[in-house]
Structure formats: structure tokens, C-alpha cells
């Protein structure tokens, strides 16, 4: 069965899209609406790409609905681009959604209830689903969740030792994020090594230029991940602090006179690489500039050390958890393109059977790549992530399931609201 799936990846101020031809997974058309929301110093723009040729259109994009309409109009200008299905990346599925699901009124209402768990990401995604329904009511929609890959973690890994009534009332548990990407690269790596997914164990390192997380995978399933209840926990990220003594968060909270939004902004937007370097939120900038013999250079070196150290600690923890990992996988912007990070993270890990070849690491030209030392029992792989393709695959699998897609009629209760 052929299907054309339009994948939307809705950020707080952006809307990425790709049109994927399934089952081949071919992507001809894609793009991104940037600066969605209130006016900023730069104008809003849609960058649209067909067969690798980019075109830009400046247009006011006050909300995601407008951005969505503009994208759809642009798509309609091309022949043969009408989607059969729209698939949305949803950051947080809470403990309700452990698999992709067709979107109907019940799903939308459930997602709205979950908004406090992902206040920046879930509301625009839900608004987009509603816009899509209003403008194209016959078009089926599927939600694919970033949390669902982690939904089968063992309870001892996802439980925080807090009072049960608190955990129940506020739905406090480890959810984990980047699940779509982790799942995709793990499947790619297993196929690359010729190991059936059900027997494949690995540590997946999704190192983005913004968010980053590690995931321990045993027998193809996520058993732990470094992000937790929120995306704040875990590694040092571009502007997020990662792991932090709760008492320090409380000390800042006291300094900020109990203003939770100020604390949230401080830990989410002003910390991490940006907070440490005082220079850039992107570790690539820091890596490119640290080699100066100055106080600033020392600060940047310190930033890199802290950034790498945290990843190393999590990698060690998850290699112990997976017991006999087949591979360590690096992916996303930093994981794919910064050899220094891969080397710093994997150096001196022979205890776990992991040895990286510095020459192969430095010479990666195309992906996927195996950068392991000859004979290393744990392979080190660099795999390009493709979240949109992964979303399309998951949505397509759902479409094909018997009884899951009765006549492309997603809004089973006849309304979205």
C-alpha cells in the first residue's frame, strides 16, 4: 500500500515539515516555518525545499495555524503532493500514550490535559492538530510521541522515590524524550550490524545542538534514559543545566523569591553550555574557540570538560546497565559532526569493551560510519538521525494495522473540541 505522509514537527516557535512517500521512505519536499509567533527582530519566513532546491518566502506567521495554512498552500502549488495522512511529532504522551495513535477528540482532550508536562511543546502541537482538522476535516491525523519509546522502562528506572500521593497527583515519573530519534538510530544500527532488534543492546547518544540525551537499550527496548520527568534532567545541554542538586534549585528558588517561572527560565534558558561559557549555547562554537591562551580560553575549556564529563558518566552508567552492549551510537547534530566530542566521551573505556579508532573518528565522511578500533567488542557507530522518516514509518505501520484505520475517519466522535 502506497501512502504520502506529511510529517509535522512542531516547535515552540517553528514548524518543520516533510512529505514522505511510503513505503519507500522517499522525501522530496520539506521545509521549515521559522519565527512563528509574536514579531521578532527578524521577519518570519518559510524555507521550502523541493528536490533540494530551496525557496524562501517572508510572510507574517503570528501562530501555528497561519504557518500550517501557508505550508499547505505552498504544497498545493505542486502536483501530486496531496497527503494521505498527516503525522505529528508530539513531545509528551505522558503515561497515557505508549504508541502512535490516530487523533480524535478524545486524544486531543487527553493531550490538552497533559500540557503542564510540556508547556512549551504540546500546546502548539495540539493547536496544529485542531487547525488541520478545521481546514481538512477528512484528512486523517496520527500522533507519534517522543516519550513512547521509553514507556516500557522498568519501574525501578522510572520511579522517583517520592511519596506515592505526590507521584500520582502530579504524574511524576521519568518519561524520557528524543524517543523517536533513539528508536530510529537503534533500528538502523541493529540492521547495520546484522543483529535482530530483539537481541540488540546499545547505548544511544542523541547529542543535539539544543537538547541531548542518552538512552540505554536492551533487546531493542529503552530501559533507561537521561532525561526524566522533564527535558531538564540529564546531560549538560545548550541552555539547560541537566542534573542539578535539588537543594541548589531550591536555593535559587529562594533567591528568586519563590517565582517558579523565573526559576524555570533560569534553568532552561540561561544555563548549560551558555551559562558555563558565557559565550555561546552551541558546543561547536565553544570547541572552535577554546584554544586561546586567555582567561576566556580557560573558561571555554572548562565548559567542554564539564559537557564531556557528564556524557561520559552517563555512558559508563548505561554500559553497566546494558551489561553486554553491542554498540554505542552517536547521532544528531553534535553526535554526527563533532569528532572531538565522540573521542572525549569514548576515550579510556576499554573496561566496558569500548575502543574508538581516533583516525576513523576524525575521518568520518559519510554516514552511517563505524569508528571502532579493530576487535573492539562494543562497536562505536555514527548514524544520522531522521526523525521525520521515523515518524512517517510509525504512522505508516499504524495505517497498515487491520482495524486501526476504519476508512480514514480519525474524528470518531465527529468533532475535535
Amino acid at each position, binding site marked *: 500500500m502506497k501512502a504520502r505522509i506529511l510529517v509535522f514537527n512542531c516547535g515552540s516557535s517553528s514548524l518543520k515539515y516533510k512529505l514522505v512517500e511510503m513505503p519507500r521512505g522517499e522525501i522530496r519536499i520539506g521545509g521549515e516555518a521559522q519565527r512563528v509567533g509574536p514579531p521578532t527582530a527578524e521577519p518570519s519566513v518559510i524555507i521550502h525545499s523541493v528536490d533540494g532546491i530551496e525557496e524562501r518566502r517572508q510572510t507574517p506567521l503570528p501562530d501555528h495555524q497561519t504557518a500550517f495554512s501557508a505550508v499547505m498552500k505552498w504544497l498545493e502549488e505542486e502536483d501530486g503532493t496531496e497527503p494521505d495522512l498527516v503525522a505529528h511529532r508530539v513531545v509528551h504522551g505522558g503515561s497515557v500514550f505508549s504508541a502512535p495513535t490516530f487523533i480524535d477528540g478524545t486524544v486531543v482532550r487527553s493531550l490538552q490535559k497533559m500540557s503542564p508536562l510540556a508547556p512549551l511543546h504540546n500546546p502548539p502541537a495540539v493547536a496544529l492538530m485542531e487547525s488541520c482538522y478545521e481546514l481538512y476535516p477528512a484528512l486523517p491525523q496520527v500522533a507519534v510521541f517522543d516519550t513512547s519509546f521509553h514507556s516500557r522502562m522498568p519501574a525501578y528506572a522510572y520511579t522517583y*522515590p517520592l511519596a506515592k500521593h505526590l507521584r500520582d497527583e502530579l504524574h511524576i515519573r521519568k518519561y524520557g524524550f528524543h524517543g523517536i530519534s533513539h528508536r530510529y538510530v537503534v533500528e538502523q544500527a541493529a540492521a547495520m550490524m546484522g543483529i535482530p532488534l530483539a537481541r540488540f543492546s546499545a547505548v544511544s547518544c542523541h547529542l543535539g545542538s539544543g537538547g541531548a540525551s542518552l538512552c540505554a537499550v536492551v533487546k531493542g527496548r529503552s530501559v533507561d534514559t537521561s532525561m526524566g520527568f522533564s527535558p531538564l534532567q540529564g546531560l549538560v545541554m545548550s541552555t539547560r543545566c541537566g542534573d542539578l542538586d535539588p*537543594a541548589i534549585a531550591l536555593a535559587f528558588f529562594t533567591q528568586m523569591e519563590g517565582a517558579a517561572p523565573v526559576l524555570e527560565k533560569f534553568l532552561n534558558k540561561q544555563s548549560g553550555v551558555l551559562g558555563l561559557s558565557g559565550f555561546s549555547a552551541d558546543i561547536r562554537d565553544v570547541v572552535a574557540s577554546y584554544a586561546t591562551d586567555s582567561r576566556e580560553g580557560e573558561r571555554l575549556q572548562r565548559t567542554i570538560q564539564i559537557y564531556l564529563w557528564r556524557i561520559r*558518566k552517563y555512558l559508563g552508567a548505561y554500559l553497566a546497565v546494558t551489561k553486554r552492549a553491542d554498540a554505542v551510537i552517536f547521532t544528531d547534530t553534535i553526535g554526527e559532526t563533532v569528532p572531538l566530542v565522540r573521542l572525549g566521551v569514548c576515550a579510556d573505556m*576499554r573496561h566496558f569493551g569500548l575502543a574508538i579508532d581516533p583516525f576513523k573518528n576524525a575521518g568520518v565522511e559519510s554516514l552511517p560510519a563505524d569508528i571502532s578500533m579493530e576487535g573492539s567488542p562494543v562497536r562505536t557507530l555514527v548514524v544520522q538521525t531522521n526523525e521525520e522518516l521515523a515518524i512517517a514509518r510509525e504512522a505508516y505501520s499504524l495505517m497498515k494495522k487491520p482495524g486501526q484505520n476504519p476508512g480514514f475517519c480519525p474524528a470518531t466522535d465527529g468533532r475535535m473540541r
Partner: protein
Amino acid sequence: MVLDPGPRVLRYACFRMPGKRPWLHASVGDYRLLDNGMHTLRELRSKVNMAGVGGKIDCIGVRIRHSGVLMDGPAVLTGALLDGLKERALSAPLHLPPLLEVLRGCAELFGGIPIVCVSETAFFTRLPERERSYAIREDAMSNTDLKRMGFHGIYHEAAYRYVCGRGNGHAGKRVISICLERQPEIAAVMNGSPLMVTSGSTPLEGIPGETASGEIDPGIVIALAREKGWGPEKINAVLTCESGLGALLGHTVTLRDVFLSKDRDAKFARALVRYRMLCACGAGIAAMGGLDVIVFSGRYRSLGAVIGPRLSKRCSPRGAPGRGTVAWDVFPSTLDYIIADVAFRYLRLNVQALPASLP
């Protein structure tokens, strides 16, 4: 004589070194109620003098629970040290004020006897910067108290020396030290210095304790503030006193209960603690680039026999043929004895370190 002044309880023990059995030891509850603890110290002096079998006191070793970066090893009490601790009183408001009272009282009542301060945090002043630091804006972190440190340094350092001195080839090697106290703490120690520790800027971070949550997502603090409307004090009380293993079981519990009980909830709590310990050990191995031995210490050190075999198996090296299972060991000493031993050795090495006259 060893003194361990806590917020409510003063523990004391007297040893005739190098003997390991105390000839006098006890705890006094609510010792500060009368005369800021002076009354208790006077009674203690009388008891020691009357005990007869013990003879005179040559040295007083005092446990310092939190000295931040002020002390990097044992030190004889001087006016400068006392002033330094006084300046830090606000950073450990539960522990330092009673300690200061006891130190002043000892100086007054046991004049002429050297007082050696043995700090729990001194060992961790050697933590590398990359481990000590959080990814927080530099200006906000200028307060050094916001850096990571451990809180069972006395046990870790002594346990490390113990395994290195066992003559089984661990000298200068890579050691994971697991201190099984009410809030367990794991440190990776190599060449005598710590490279990693599970506790944070306070003991709240790390492995879950009997009543403390251990490491949680900082987003939970924000959620508790936003959804419950709680302020910092309430959140701190919940995380410190109403969480941890007790919260998992729904009642007061000790680490020993959790590991020895057959109760279903205890089994789950046990799995959770074991899992967090495994993760911490993995992180420690990564920090040191390998592992030679795991050592258990602390009041629940005997649980090492329950935890050690499986943990050492999971932490064993992989890949090269002939690389066996990592060894594990239990460090048998009590905290009182370790402090006595540290004070005793310190004085022997620093015979010129006379007690200064205190202000």
C-alpha cells in the same frame, strides 16, 4: 576521645590507641538544652575522669560534618579555624552551630588537650573541577557552596587506605567506595583522590536515602512549586524528610530493613537502590577508566555481603580474555574509631601542633 556533635545528639567514644574497642562510648540526646551543651560536656569530663580504666585524655577528635572548602584534611583547632567555621555557619545551619558550641566548650573544659578536627567534606576538596561544577551561569555559581562535594569523606578515605593496605595488589588502584549510611554515598577514588561522588552540593542529591529523595529531575522542584504552590522550605522538607525509601514503602524504614525484608514494597525499593548503585558504579568506572575493587563501609557495611557479589559481577571488565570479576571487600571500622585513628596519626605526624589559645 571522639566527639560527634549532631543537631540533637552528641555521640562520644574513648579509645586507648591503637586499640579498636572503645573503653567508653554513649550518646546524649538533647544535649544542648542546658547551657548550650556545656552542662553535657562537664558531665562527660567527670565521667571520663571517673572511668579510671581509661586514664587521661591525650587528644580530642571532633567530627566536622560540613567544612566546605575550608579544610582539606584533619587540622588542629585554632582560633582561625574556629572563625572560619563560624563564617560558614549559615551554609550548614543544622550542623555548624552545635559544632561551634561543642568546640568552644571543649577548648574551655579540656584546656591543654589538642583538639583535632576531622572533616567529612575535606576529602572532596580534591574533586576535579569538571565533577564539582554544575552547568549553571558562572556568576550564580561564584558561591563555592554550590559546588558538588561528598559528605562521607572520612569513611571513603579510610576505606580506600584499607583496601590499598590489604596487600592484595590494590595500592594506588581504582576503587569504588560505597558508604552504606542512612543516605548511601558512592565515590570513585583513584590514587588517593576522589574523581566522582554521588552526593551534590548537599546530601540531598545522589542515591536515595531512608527519608531523602536523592537525585531527582530539577523540573520536579518547579512542578511542585507551580502545581502545589509550595515554597522552598516546604519543598525542602518534603524532599529531605518525606521521600526516599520510606516514601516507597509508605512507612519509616532503614536501609537494612529494605535489604533484608521479604515485603513486596521493600523488594521494589531494593531493586531501585541496587539499580541506582549500579548506575553510579558505571559512572565511577567511566570516571576512572576502569575498576579494581569495590569496598563497602558505613553503619550498614554488613549489607556489602548482600550487595557486593552481584554488583561486582555487573561491574567486571569486558572483552579481554583473562579479565576476571572485580573484587569486593568490607571495611570493618566504625566511624568513631576512624576519627580516633585519624586524630592519633595526625598528632604523631605533627607533634609540634599544639593547641592554640582560643578567643
